[in-house]
């Protein structure tokens, strides 16, 4: 039995679609731009095109609708809280009253705006992680961070750290599982009792896991040095990211969409 099924791929859903095939850099930049503009727009009406646009992208990506909706699960509570808070605690013209709680027109507007923004935030970031493997996201980040070289941003080091972390997630889960089973065989119980006891019960898992991590880190460093790793200087890549026609087209579409949306706000 496995306590941690299906880790390591993150949330990546490997199907073949046009969205999957777009260069990771284009996808990262597009999502970032869309998010910025999404949070700048103050008009509820202006969020509608974002909904439609995101919907089209999801349709093109062939991601099952179930996975899309499941992505909202972790933020459901936050969503509800923010929604109710805005509805009841925004001052303005009173629409109607429930007991002592006043629902204002501005409140409803604000609640919908914030709720929609949150939902779109999750949809857009999920669109990126659903359609791009962790490895390509890392590669894309490395290339993008190179633009900040003049700020002395260690782009290679950041990317290498990210990719090694990704690589070791499944290994560490495996190790955690092994330790848990070993400790359970000796009578340890995990996650029972009151709050403090429950936290304390994880110590027999966490301590050996940490010690193991440090040992692994050292062994890995030795193995990397043995394979001539000396940092990003003078290093080449097997797979070089290359922008193709469809990538430029995708970028242009996103920018046109944003420009159109901003101009709509002006008039």
């Amino acid at each position, binding site marked *: 039995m496995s306590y941690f099924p299906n880790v*390591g*791929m993150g949330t990546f859903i490997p199907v073949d679609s046009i969205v999957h095939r777009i260069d990771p850099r284009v996808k990262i930049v597009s999502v970032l731009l869309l998010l910025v503009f999404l949070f700048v727009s103050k008009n509820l009406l202006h969020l509608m095109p974002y909904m439609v646009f995101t919907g089209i992208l999801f349709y093109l990506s062939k991601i099952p609708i179930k996975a899309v909706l499941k992505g909202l699960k972790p933020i459901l509570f936050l969503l509800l809280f923010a929604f109710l808070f805005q509805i009841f605690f925004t001052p303005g013209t009173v629409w109607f009253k429930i007991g002592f709680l006043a629902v204002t027109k501005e409140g409803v507007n604000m609640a919908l705006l914030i709720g929609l923004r949150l939902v779109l935030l999750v949809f857009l970031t999920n669109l990126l992680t659903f359609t791009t493997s*962790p*490895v390509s996201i890392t590669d894309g980040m490395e290339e993008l961070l190179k633009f900040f070289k003049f700020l002395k941003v260690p782009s290679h080091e950041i990317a290498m750290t990210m*990719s*090694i972390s*990704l*690589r070791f997630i*499944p*290994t560490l889960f*495996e190790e955690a599982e092994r330790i848990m089973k070993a400790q359970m065989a000796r009578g340890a119980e995990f996650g029972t009792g009151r709050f403090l006891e429950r936290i304390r019960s994880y110590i027999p898992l966490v301590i050996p896991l940490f010690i193991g991590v440090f040992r*692994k880190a050292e*062994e*890995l460093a*030795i*193995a*990397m*040095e*043995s*394979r*001539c*790793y*000396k940092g990003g200087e*003078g*290093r*080449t*890549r*097997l*797979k*070089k990211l290359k922008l193709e026609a469809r990538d430029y087209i995708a970028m242009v579409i996103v920018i046109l969409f944003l420009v159109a949306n901003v101009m709509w706000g002006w008039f």
Partner: protein
Amino acid sequence: MIKLIDVSFSYGDREIFDGINMEIGDGEWVALVGANGSGKSTLIKLLNGLLVPTKGRVLIDGMDTRDEGNVWEIRRRVGVVFQNPDTQIVASIVEDDIAFGPENLGLAPEEIRERVEQVLKVLRLEPFRSSPTYALSGGQKQKLAIAGVLAMKPRYLVLDEPTSMLDPPSRRDINKIIKFLYDKEKITVVYSTHNPEEIFYATRVIALSKGTLFFNGTPWEFFSNPERVWKCGVKLPIITHLCYKLKKRGLDLSFPIFSPKELAEELWRLKSKM
């Protein structure tokens, strides 16, 4: 040629080696044996400059490992595979991991691609080229570790107990690959192990004990003295052990014997003398 001249090494106050001399020529297969803590792993780290001797010199094709300028060329020539496959794999995808070494050497992408293909083929890892590395079995992971080293085209393949964490079928598989590389690719092999069968692949056995060179000779010579074998933390092959026991009980057998057939023939000879 790998040459150790009067090499001493210590971790702080703890002395590991004191004045070791040895040579490993091209085309040799050296089995490195010794009990746990005898310094095998330290010796291996001295060979590719991960450690430098506190006294004496380690020369790889004439290049001194203490010379900073040589260190990357030495590491390219002396490829090291370690015991734990899990902590040698850097990338999440098989072919990316094989490419890691060549990428570090700064080779052109086409050249890297060519080498990756070559190594995938030699080690029969082609079906796994795009697999995530965590999904491989222990034996396949160790194969991948060997692949990653081979892609740098080393002259010397140094393996630090590469099969000790594997099950017997994977172990045989790894040994077959190393044998192939030794026979066909003419790569020089240094192989540290406790396993008697693996020692027999070697052309020469070097045994370490308490920081000194304890034995240097053929596998046959090595196994002819059981006390010496045990002192190195190695067991006798089962047949040899049986032969040793029978001899101790007073049977007039020749020693050592390594194959069941030989033993049967010896026993037959004894029987016919009776």
